[in-house]
């Protein structure tokens, strides 16, 4: 009870409220602008959190996460370009609605269901996370190894374009985590005599490079092309009637549940949640033939689920130190900067910070709703910011982020190198999310496997005799097998059709 009160006091400090609000506004801007993402917003805000309290810093990052995810609906509705990958499905119906003169209704609906999805998953987070953290206190190295393997195998399901390339990217991420001093024996690996590499690569410059710099380089390719906005004179958000929402209660509920579960799965993200719930909503809808032609059900499904991911993704990140998606992978960096190691001990040793974070997530969702509703015309104006001025500004912000970590130019070079790698990997459909997952989870998997090997004197049977370890490894095998079987069936079908 004391920790809860302390957490709430920390959450309602002016600093925490102000920076959560600022993070939310920036997140909405980044979400609304095509080519910029909530992950990028979070990555760029990390250096800003250096001088803040952990609760204020996390509040700012969660504000950017929630705002960025919801903000994507603005350009989806008005430009037919998803502001973020999470809003791809929103485009299918929100833009046709705008063309029918219902832009306000599309935007208002997106906003309202984003709030519902976000609050639903925040509630699940607050209910599940403490219980999972208590359960995880009993985890040993075998459980942590199998959790890391589970997270790594999700690469198979998120590598939508090419499973093979996604796995290669994941392996590359794992290999990069080996650079530096071996945590078990203290031997140096792949430093090539460079002192900066003795402790390995810093997470933040790698993340900023892969997510933010690579996007800026992709943007550089097409700068100069103009965007056409649908007419938005006198635009303001209109909410659907209560009856409309009540008729679609099962779509809203199923989308919130899907988004939360997908968020909890390590490595999966908002775009997967939105596709799965869009598909599910078609089954539940009374008018499935209207999907893709301006059906409000499609907008409801996509936007409820993508914001429901925000709370869900925080569950594995806070309780086990395993990111739920790429944005929480970056947030992990934010916690580490404050000397806080996510995991069950964080709940045990500093529960007031956990309760503070829960409160900030609720506040971030409320801010997201309020700012996007009242500031809609301003955010729409942001869509007209010339990219030839915005992209250099973003690259300077990236430099601040990378340099601010340790005051070293080496980190800025690392960021640029990974920016190039991220650009090439995106172009060739290897993806950057698998690299990040591999980088974060690879070292964890190796360390815990070797610890378990030494602890149990080489007895590998312990990986099948411990029930939680066995369950997680079986789940991992299923996650690898299902896409392979699905792809195999699809190629057989294609051959038969041909």
């Amino acid at each position, binding site marked *: 009870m004391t920790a809860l009160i302390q957490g709430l006091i920390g959450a309602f400090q002016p600093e925490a409220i102000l920076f959560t609000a600022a993070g939310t506004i920036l997140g909405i801007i980044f979400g609304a602008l095509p080519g910029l993402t909530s992950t990028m917003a979070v990555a760029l805000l990390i250096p800003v959190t250096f001088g803040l309290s952990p609760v204020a810093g996390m509040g700012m990052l969660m504000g950017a996460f929630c705002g960025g995810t919801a903000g994507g609906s603005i350009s989806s509705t008005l430009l037919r370009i998803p502001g973020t990958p999470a809003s791809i499905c929103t485009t299918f119906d929100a833009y046709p609605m705008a063309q029918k003169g219902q832009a306000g209704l599309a935007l208002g609906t997106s906003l309202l269901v984003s709030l519902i999805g976000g609050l639903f998953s925040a509630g699940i987070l607050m209910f599940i996370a403490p219980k999972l953290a208590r359960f995880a206190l009993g985890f040993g190295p075998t459980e942590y190894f199998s959790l890391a393997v589970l997270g790594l195998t999700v690469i198979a399901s998120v590598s939508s374009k090419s499973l093979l390339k996604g796995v*290669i990217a994941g392996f590359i991420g794992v290999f990069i985590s080996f650079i530096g001093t071996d945590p078990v*024996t203290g031997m140096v690996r792949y430093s090539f005599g460079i002192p900066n590499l003795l402790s390995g690569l810093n997470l933040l410059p790698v993340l900023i490079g892969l997510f933010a710099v690579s996007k800026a380089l992709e943007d550089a390719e097409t700068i100069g092309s103009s965007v056409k906005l649908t007419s938005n004179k006198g635009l303001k958000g209109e909410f659907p009637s209560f009856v409309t929402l009540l008729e679609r209660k099962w779509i809203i509920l199923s989308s919130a549940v899907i988004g939360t579960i997908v968020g909890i799965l390590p490595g999966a993200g908002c775009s997967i949640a939105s596709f799965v719930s869009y598909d599910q909503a078609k089954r539940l809808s009374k008018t499935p033939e209207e999907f893709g032609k301006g059906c409000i059900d499609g907008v409801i499904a996509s936007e409820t689920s993508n914001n429901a991911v925000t709370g869900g993704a925080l569950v594995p990140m806070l309780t086990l130190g395993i990111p739920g998606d790429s944005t929480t992978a970056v947030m992990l960096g934010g916690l580490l900067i404050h000397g806080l190691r996510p995991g069950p001990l964080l709940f045990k040793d500093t529960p007031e910070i956990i309760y503070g974070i829960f409160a900030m997530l609720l506040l971030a969702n409320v801010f997201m709703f309020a700012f996007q509703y009242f500031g809609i015309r301003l955010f729409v104006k942001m869509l007209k910011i010339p990219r030839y001025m915005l992209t250099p500004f973003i690259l300077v912000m990236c430099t601040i982020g990378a340099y601010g970590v340790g005051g070293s130019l080496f980190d800025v070079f690392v960021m640029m190198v990974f920016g190039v790698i991220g650009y090439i990997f995106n172009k*060739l459909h290897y993806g950057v999310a698998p690299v990040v997952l591999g980088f974060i989870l690879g070292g964890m998997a190796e360390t815990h*496997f070797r610890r378990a090997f030494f602890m149990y004197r080489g007895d590998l049977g312990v990986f099948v005799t411990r029930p939680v370890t066995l369950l997680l490894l079986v789940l991992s095998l299923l996650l690898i097998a299902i896409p392979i079987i699905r792809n195999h069936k699809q190629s057989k079908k294609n051959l038969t059709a041909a």
Partner: protein
Amino acid sequence: MRKADIATSLTMICVSGFFLIQTTKIKDASGAILGPRFFPYVVLTGIILLSLLVLFYSCRKEKASSEETTLDLQGRAKVFVTLLIAFIYVALLEKLGFVFASVLFMSALGLFFYGKFDKKKVLNIFLFSAVAPVALFFLFTKFFHTLLP
């Protein structure tokens, strides 16, 4: 895409081969089976085998009639110049200081991206490039206590 896949796979195989050789040089005083070399060997071998598969599938693909359009080449040239300007910026960052280096960087890149001569827009670019780095410097160093060159 086919040519790019072949080139990337070959590059990955060569780089992984190089790191495999470097792995043999890692000191291991413990002599344990799962020493510091074990997992790098596994992962690098995995990268090589999977890249060989990608290479195999890419070679099997039919050659496209025209691999690249003029638009693709223009875009790539823009990326190359952006990177060149960015690397020069990073190299000069500590020598010139954050503010001056960023003003030069944002002006150069902004003008390159804009690519035309419109007095008003060019003036806006210079103005924004002058104001933004100064504002960021004060915000991050005085308010957020972040280290900047």
